[in-house]
């Protein structure tokens, strides 16, 4: 008789425990299942990067020592920011443009570059605009040949231009090559 009472108490106890756990009245955490977020250590190095731009009807290049990393988004952000500064110095860009964000797709074959404003001036010709984009693509593909295409955005929306279509990504090889 005593044994039955013990069994009964055991079942009632385990049922009550299961019920409270199931309804999240109690939380059971397992010590060995604890996950600790370990920051990924990206390898960084100083490397000579070639920046391309078109001026005075010819292609020019400028070599700069930059810190690049395994994290392609970080490296592309550094390279494009320096490239934008270079274009401002050379008076190719008519206003200072800031790179807001660089994102890569899951396969790291398409890059999304978001700027704070358009790279072009309304009065620029198609040729000038095309050469600015070609310079950017040329610089990117030399550093990162695996990339297939680049989408240009302004404030995370597709870049709107009177002449050129940016509703789809541009191939990394550009249109002049």
């Amino acid at each position, binding site marked *: 008789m005593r044994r039955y009472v013990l069994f009964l108490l055991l079942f009632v106890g385990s049922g009550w425990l299961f019920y409270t756990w199931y309804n999240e009245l109690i939380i059971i955490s397992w010590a060995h299942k604890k996950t600790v977020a370990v920051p990924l250590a990206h390898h960084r190095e100083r490397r000579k990067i070639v920046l391309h731009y078109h001026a005075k009807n010819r292609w020019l290049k400028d070599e700069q020592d930059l810190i690049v990393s395994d994290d392609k988004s970080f490296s592309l952000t550094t390279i494009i920011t320096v490239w934008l500064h270079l274009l401002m110095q050379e008076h190719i860009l008519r206003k200072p443009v800031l790179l807001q964000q660089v994102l890569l797709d899951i396969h790291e074959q398409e890059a999304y570059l978001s700027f704070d404003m358009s790279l072009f001036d309304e009065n620029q*010709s*198609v*040729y000038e605009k*095309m050469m600015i984009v070609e310079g950017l693509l040329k610089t990117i593909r030399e550093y990162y040949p695996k990339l297939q295409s680049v989408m240009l955005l302004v404030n995370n929306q597709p870049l709107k*231009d009177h002449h*050129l279509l940016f509703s*789809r990504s541009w*191939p990394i090889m550009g*249109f*002049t090559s």
Partner: protein
Amino acid sequence: MCALMVQDSSAFFHWPFFSRSHERVSEKKSTITIFIDYETERGRAVGNDFESALMSSCAREIQRIGEASSSIIKIITAQDIPEMITLLERTSVINIKKPSLYLRIGAFHCSDGHQSLALYHFLQNQVTDWWYQKKLNTFFIPCDGVYLEHLSQSRLIGKRMGEVLKKEVKDYQLNYQGMVGLPLTYLEGINAPAMYSEMGIVGSDDSILCAQLISGALLDILPLLSQEE
């Protein structure tokens, strides 16, 4: 049954009695319509009044030279169509006119003093072409076979015009910037081989010079356009 009827009707027109009317039909077909477009003041205008005046004078000059040089050319300029608000409506109106060639001209004032001429056609890159080839059977987007046909025709015309311009511009010390396929907003949806010529202009005389060069190149590609007809 339907195919038989078509066959019968074609045989009927080959009958000697109707041969004249058949010739007349072919004569009518041999007219080549070229649409010359440019940025209008009320349309999607960019640039200043000087540039838009240059573009309209250049278009008129191409029309004058072209129609005077050949009786089979009919040139329609942007002045001949009503002013449009959107690019979509503009494209639809142009497609209704069924041109054999759509040529858009653009002018910009060169601050560095070097006159230039560039030629563009439908884009040709496979990576960006994929979305045109999708089955979007809307009324204005050329797709599938039609699009690819116009693409190859545009390339061919662009290549020929480019060769002529490259040869000619040397004499005038113009900087010819080559021919390339680009994703241009206003060439999108045109149901004809589409070209865009951009002129870098210093003085007003340059627009006439460019018009002469472009009309010369247009006359050179006429056999290509009549083949298409």
